[in-house]
């Protein structure tokens, strides 16, 4: 890191490259990108290179190579896959370029090669959702779960946090089935419709994000079975917030892409400034429910 620092000092401005997971797939990522660029523009000493991997691991690896090739001062990466990016991160480390991981973490094997992680704790979010679910159902009931795109880290971690915590905290709540909704509202709506046909009694639905949660809610309303059903999501989207305001949606986890982006940039700058940055910088993602929602701004995405 010392080499990078020296050159940074010489150039006076720092160049930071970021490779994101899949901008455009949902508005969280888009808002993140915009917030990141805004934050960088606000700081005259920072020049950023913004790349998007389009969800493809291999493309992200080549973007890492391209960034190393350009000798940026630091790299921020939103890994498409926690495992698969370890060697790429290791390469950057070897070249003396500090890497900050943002939003979803790199696998344990890569922890030695990163300067820091900054982002939400997806496992913790799953745990929060499980706790809310348990609360809402009073410890008894049958629920279904709709997960994100199969095989991607965020989806896996949220599911893991939720499943483990629910089993531990609320043995009285049974999960009838788990099916993917691919982060897609229409897909989640279809999945929920089939659940409704299949199960006569559904007390609660946990969805990997609010987009899918609202899809499930739509299906239940259309089937006339939404009354009394508990919907809990994650990554509070504006649609989820509104549904909560209407009293149709129980709760979610509040996560601001703006905070996420700013935290990532700040962490990278701190690292470059040689400050002593802790390895894991989780920013807070509180529970948001119908009760406490007035303490939060309506999400901008």
């Amino acid at each position, binding site marked *: 890191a010392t080499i990078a620092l020296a050159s940074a000092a010489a150039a006076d401005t720092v160049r930071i490259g970021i490779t994101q997971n899949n901008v455009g797939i949902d508005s969280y990522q888009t808002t993140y990108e915009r917030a990141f660029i805004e934050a960088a523009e606000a700081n005259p000493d920072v020049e950023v290179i913004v790349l998007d991997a389009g969800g493809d691991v291999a493309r992200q690896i*080549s973007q890492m190579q391209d960034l190393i090739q350009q000798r940026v001062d630091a790299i921020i990466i939103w890994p498409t896959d926690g495992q698969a990016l370890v060697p790429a991160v290791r390469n950057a480390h070897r070249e003396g370029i500090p890497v900050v991981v943002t939003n979803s973490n790199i696998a344990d094997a890569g922890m030695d090669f990163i300067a820091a992680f900054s982002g939400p704790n997806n496992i913790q979010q799953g745990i929060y959702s499980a706790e809310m679910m348990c609360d809402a159902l009073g410890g008894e009931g049958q629920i279904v779960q709709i997960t994100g795109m199969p095989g991607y880290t965020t989806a896996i971690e949220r599911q893991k946090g939720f499943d483990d915590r629910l089993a531990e905290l609320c043995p009285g709540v049974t999960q009838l089935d788990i099916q993917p909704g691919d982060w897609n509202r229409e897909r989640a709506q279809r999945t929920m419709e089939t659940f409704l046909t299949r199960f006569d009694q559904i007390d609660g639905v946990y969805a990997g994000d609010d987009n899918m949660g609202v899809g499930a809610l739509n299906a239940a309303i259309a089937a006339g079975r939404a009354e009394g059903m508990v919907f809990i999501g994650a990554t509070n989207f504006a649609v989820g917030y509104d549904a909560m305001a209407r009293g149709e949606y129980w709760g979610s986890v509040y996560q601001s892409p703006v905070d996420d982006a700013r935290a990532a940039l700040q962490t990278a700058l701190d690292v470059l400034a040689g400050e002593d940055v802790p390895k894991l910088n989780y920013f807070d993602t509180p529970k948001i429910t119908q009760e406490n929602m007035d303490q939060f701004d309506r999400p901008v995405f």
Partner: protein
Amino acid sequence: MSRLNDISVLRWLMRNPIWGFVLLIFVFFSLSADNFFDYRNFQNILVQTSTIGIIALGMTLVMINGNIDLSVGATLALAAAFAVDVQSWAAFATWGNWQILPAVCIALLVGILMGAINGFIVWKTGVDAFIVTLGAMLGIRGLVFVYTGESSFFATNFAYSDFSALSLGPLPVLAVIFLLCVMVVHWLLSRTVHGRNTYAVGGNREAAVNAGIRVGPHMILNFMIIGFLAALSGVLLSTQMGAATPNLGRDYELWVITAVVLGGTKLTGGKGDIIGTFGGVLAIGIMRNGMNLMQVPAFYVLVIIGAILIAVLFLDKRFNTSNDGGLRL
């Protein structure tokens, strides 16, 4: 250089407009992207294109044959999963770094097997390869998820991911393997009887049957070759990642086909060559790399790549007028 040579170079470029295009974007990015014209960047481009490039070689064979293979992305993911997972099998626990060897072999065999299955179905059922491999694209992806249990594997042995960082002389080992494959497949296609029969089967399948070529086994062989190459590509990709992920290789089939078609291979079969495919692959690789270096925003990259694809096709049509003998059809 004599005038005559100038003309023949020009004519060659007319027949392979993709290389003209490669030249064009090469010059363009050299002038406009700061870090593009750099030896290390060229290495990067070769490594980055090797994944799609290796599969594209096999796709060229299959497409000249008059078939297509949409399942290569899934096969790649399955092979990568095996390559990473088999290393940790208890049976090879004491093998040290040698445990990589059986892992890679099994992964490649899995690829060959998938190809053989596709080929066999295409042969025996007579269902169009597009349909058979569209099914396989879903099915093999299903196998990947069954095998990986949805999550990623990683190689505990760093020697595996270090392999991709090795260099042979001036070139990274991945690039060397890619170039080697290019040469071997080029040789296979242009010099051997199997290669010539590949053109015959694609050019006029009925004639090939009538001439006594065993078309079925011949096609299976080509499907096995593409299965092998897809698996090889998966193995190499997994060495870059030191891991395998279940969603690896999604959409690759589309990029591979695009590269091959850009290289002048006809979807209807009977026509194409490896030199063109190599050009097509480089064109996509250089475009991706150059736009990254120029920081073109992601949304615009989509538009530009799509538009260029169509533009190249248009130019190809201009230069290579079809053989309808000038009829207004």
